[in-house]
């Protein structure tokens, strides 16, 4: 599981290297290449945060993968640079009821236990717990809802024995929806917490 995801990180890192190589050789198209890369990548990866260019989803077809590997085979690949961004331990999203922040379902509690165990095993690992709300109601209140959702998960991890300073909590309120739309289905997908590694500790 983990390995295959690192594989994808590998590809993106490779892709970046290809572009940097092109940049070095042909300065005139440097800007254009970077812009196309960012635009293309964010499209392909369907990422909400444009800073993050790595995902757990496969993003290239088999044949493209091969090509990318060929071009970069001369260079060594440094996995540390991506610092575990995009790595998950399987499911990393916990969903919430409207205006609520309690975690009821056992499947969500299992996610928290799984992450807690990982954090205890990997002393240097750090997590960011990102809270979100749906678009309805006041923005400042939604920011608070997202924060409370994240804080609750942090609290459960602390009870499980995770060190407090290895967890960062941030709420984006209603600003970064997972899906667009204004019906109950999309709203329920947007009321969520995403657990993200800042550092996998490996």
């Amino acid at each position, binding site marked *: 599981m983990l390995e295959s995801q690192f594989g994808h990180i590998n590809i993106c890192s490779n892709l970046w290297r290809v572009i940097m190589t092109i940049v070095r050789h042909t300065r005139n198209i440097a800007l254009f290449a970077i812009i196309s890369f960012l635009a293309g990548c964010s499209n392909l990866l369907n990422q909400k945060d444009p800073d993050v260019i790595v995902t757990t989803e496969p993003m290239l077809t088999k044949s493209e993968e091969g090509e990318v590997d060929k071009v970069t085979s001369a260079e060594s690949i440094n996995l540390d640079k991506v610092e575990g961004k995009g790595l998950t331990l399987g499911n990393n999203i916990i969903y919430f009821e409207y205006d609520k922040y309690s975690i009821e379902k056992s499947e969500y509690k299992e996610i928290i236990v799984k992450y807690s165990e990982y954090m205890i095993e990997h002393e240097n690992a750090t997590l960011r717990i990102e809270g979100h709300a749906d*678009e309805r109601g006041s923005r*400042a*209140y939604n920011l608070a809802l997202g924060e409370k959702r994240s804080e609750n998960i942090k609290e459960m991890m602390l009870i499980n024995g995770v060190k407090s300073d290895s967890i960062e909590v941030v709420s984006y309120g209603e600003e970064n929806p997972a899906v667009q739309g204004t019906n109950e289905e999309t709203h329920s997908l947007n009321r969520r917490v995403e657990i993200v590694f800042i550092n996998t500790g490996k």
Partner: protein
Amino acid sequence: MKYFIFAAILQLILNSNLYAELTIKIDRAKVGALPIMISFNSDSKNFSSNIFQEIVKNDLYSSGFFNVLDSSNVKNNISKKSTQYALWTLAGTNYFLIGNIYQDNGIDYIRFDLHDVIKKNIVASYKINLTKNSNIRKVSHTISNVVFEKITGIKGIFDTKIAYISTEKVNKRKIYKLHVADIDGHNSVAIYKSSKQLMSPTWSPKNDKIAYVSFENNRPEIFVQSLSTGDREKLLSGKYSSSAPAWSPDEKYMAYTLSVNGNLEIFIYNFKTNTSKRITNSIGIDTEAEWHPNSKEIFFTSDRSGRPHIYKQSINKNKAKRVTFDGSYNADANISSDGKYLSLVHNAGNGHKIAIFSLEDRYLRVISNGRLDEAPSFAPNNKMILFASKKIHKGILVATSNDGRIRQEIELKGENVREPIWSH
């Protein structure tokens, strides 16, 4: 190639500036609007009367209180010193505003006389000195204020400002802007731009500073920015997630929200001592502080009852009193300057709407009909409410009279607008 890209980027910047003008659509009940005629002329070569006339016309029309009639058929018959009430009555107007720009000893003045056509007298007569440095828009708004107040008895708000947040997509990246604009949409200035989220703008009591939340350090933090110098300062030093700033009317404190041991609590920052004091202590969410005009009490949103509702608390006591009981959701309270009403986001099961809650008789009245309405704020004269709404997935601003009769939609071309707040 390089130049082509530079040109493209430049084009984008230029376009976004061009598009920064707000458009206002007025939708209002025709009944009850007072007929008025407005005619300005100029005997001075330094100033044209047209711009003054157009701004005053637009102000009075957009207030919803007036129906501005075409005066072109009667204005030529008006000699400067006499008035022709009979003719004006025939033309169907109740009021006639005559403006004249003239020179006296080489100094320019604009004089305006407001005639009550039915009572056949002049109800207001003023002159304003005009210089090269005169802000024509401001002078015109001042004239509108006088006319509005003389006729309606309500303080005019045509020279006040609004702040709001806009977002637009540039090269697939979201750009956030904090704007300050005149209430007629003119003189819109983006006072801060960021690729990270901006939210919760709020005016200082003297309208010379704006506090807001910025995610530039990847967490919500409160910043205070001076409008005259542009200088900005983080309210709290250190890595705190702070939000929902609210200035006390006496300018001594800033209330804000901070997370403590997993709960969101309200703190009060003292500008004199540079220290903060925690004033709420409940399991759950306490946020969105709003000061009573007395600077001694705050209203805030809390879910301590299980649902978000508005509570009130003295800043020197630890006991909060629940204020709202209607519906399942009341949040983001904004108080009228007389301390009598709260405007808030209300849900009783059919969407989030704007409501006015009377603190005296505890009556809650819904005044908007959207499903995603939010961020209400009272005009300085308490007669209008500005809020954010959605129109086919686009964020727009709506200004409505506090009875909901007059409704103005304010849109920004190519951008989503949200979180409007009226200056004091």
